[in-house]
């Protein structure tokens, strides 16, 4: 006979009705956790198991799929789609770096220079979230349109000549080129960079800046030796929050790009929803997941912020 208190964690124990109300049971945390964790186990962890088994199945939609431990699907997926994988990493990486370069000044501005405008600027950073991101991404089609003001300005400054030579634009077009996709990715994930940066910058004691100044550090030296190192937790979580979703995104590549800018997300989506080749799609998403986990682990190790994330 197991008593209530001896029951293993998460086991469905009898309802603790007879317990005196004042005594907080040792089981309380498990009762609090149970429904939410069950949800995550059934609809997050279990699906991963199903996907793993799908990725080693063979068969067809008509005859049904069977687990045959057919690991070759993974090799075929890599062999067929390595350009899309590389592109995903390259686009997401570029977008992340651009987000950091663009987002840092704004986060710094909000944290240290905005004064009574601080809350208003924060609202303006968050509020676009409420306009559906698809609508905003479609707006980029208007902004970057052929013959539009942006393309015109870039053309008259001969920027497009250089970028076309580099292969990120094509002729007089920005739409349907890698530049447009990276621009969309940068735009879409910028708030995910700004907010963690702002949180970590805001925690910095202003007196440290004064102290650095008192010790004859120039503003840039203060930034390099004091502000930036102290904002590292924000930099790490911001870059992760930008890179991970950007590498799996297929919306920007679909709306702003062309068939030459397809990312791995596009391939997974097509395989799953149009071609209905479930094993290949499952294998592709596992490779993506493993790749990202590897990059993230390496990155966290390198940046030495394991305890900060």
């Amino acid at each position, binding site marked *: 006979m197991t008593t209530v208190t001896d029951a293993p964690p998460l086991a469905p124990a009898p309802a603790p009705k007879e317990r005196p109300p004042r005594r907080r049971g040792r089981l309380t945390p498990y009762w*609090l956790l149970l429904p*939410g964790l069950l949800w995550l186990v059934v609809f997050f962890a279990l699906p991963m198991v199903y996907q793993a088994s799908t990725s080693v199945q063979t068969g067809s939609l008509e005859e049904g799929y069977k687990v045959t431990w057919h690991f070759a699907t993974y090799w075929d997926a890599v062999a067929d789609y390595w350009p899309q994988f590389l592109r995903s990493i390259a686009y997401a990486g570029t977008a992340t770096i651009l987000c950091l370069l663009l987002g840092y000044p704004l986060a710094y501005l909000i944290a240290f220079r905005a004064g009574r405008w601080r809350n208003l600027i924060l609202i303006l950073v968050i509020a676009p979230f409420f306009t559906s991101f698809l609508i905003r991404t*479609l707006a980029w089609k*208007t902004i970057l349109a052929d013959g539009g003001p942006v393309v015109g300005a870039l053309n008259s400054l001969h920027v497009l000549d250089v970028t076309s030579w580099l292969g990120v634009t094509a002729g007089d077009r920005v739409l349907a080129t890698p530049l447009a996709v990276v621009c969309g990715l940068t735009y879409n994930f910028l708030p995910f960079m700004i907010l963690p940066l702002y949180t970590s910058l805001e925690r910095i004691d202003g007196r440290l800046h004064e102290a650095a100044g008192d010790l004859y550090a120039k503003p840039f030296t203060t930034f390099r030796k004091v502000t930036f190192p102290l904002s590292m937790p924000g930099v790490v979580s911001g870059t992760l929050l930008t890179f991970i979703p950007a590498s799996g995104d297929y*919306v920007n590549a679909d709306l702003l790009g062309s068939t030459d800018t397809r990312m791995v997300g596009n391939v997974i989506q097509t395989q799953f929803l149009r071609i209905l080749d479930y094993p290949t799609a499952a294998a592709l998403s596992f490779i*993506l997941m493993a790749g990202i986990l590897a990059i993230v682990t390496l990155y966290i190790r390198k940046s030495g912020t394991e305890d900060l994330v």
Partner: protein
Amino acid sequence: MALLRWLKSRLVVIAGLLTLGYLLLPNIVVTVFSFNNPKGRFNYEWQQFSTDAWTDPCGVADLCGSLSLSLQIAGWATLGATVLGTMIAFALVRYRFRARGAVNSLIFLPMAMPEVVMAASLLTLFLNLGAQLGFWTILIAHIMFCLSFVVTAVKARVMSMDPRLEQAAQDLYAGPVQTFVRVTLPIAAPGIAAGALLAFALSFDDFIITNFNAGSTVTFPMFVWGSAQRGTPVQINVIGTAMFIVAVLFVLAGMVIGNRRNRQKA
């Protein structure tokens, strides 16, 4: 030279404001083009000023239906994720128990996973179970991915709570329920509200996971996605602009109320 020096001293401010402009540019375009009267099916080129779309926002077939479906799903997903997430957050902050680390990583993982991976794996589950894709599968998916964000938001608030406030309440003979309702919950409320708001925004805006698990059900983001292929009605811009304005007003109202309360306390 003076100008150059002035620019140099304001470099951060200028760069920051430029980024803000980059962030807001699409919203400005969306607003301007909500007053457009486009020729043809797509609303990408400026033609003529018109307020037609504003006077008739539901004038396009299925648009308002998809909007109300998205609002319903977001409402239920927010409720579900907030209740489940708040419970988890309290358990994690207030209690020591075995497997705490494992629980923490299970909460963290959905946030660190590309959406397309979660979307695809959830679809394999539903396909294997033979589940009918639609409202319920969307709701299940939304509660799943909003949960972690609610836990994180509530945890941050509960962690900064002073446990002595609750001890004080108990010293004054408040029962556990009374303590929770009158002391704990009001203090945790901003965190819970932030989590709920985040869940609502995430659910309402989600496209990738919904795209995989919706079957033939059309939420608002899916309507927009479809319209990018078939032709974009101006009404989409009207809804987008209205959402932006409502969000700003909401937050401003919240700030005004917060300020007034702080002043009353002082």
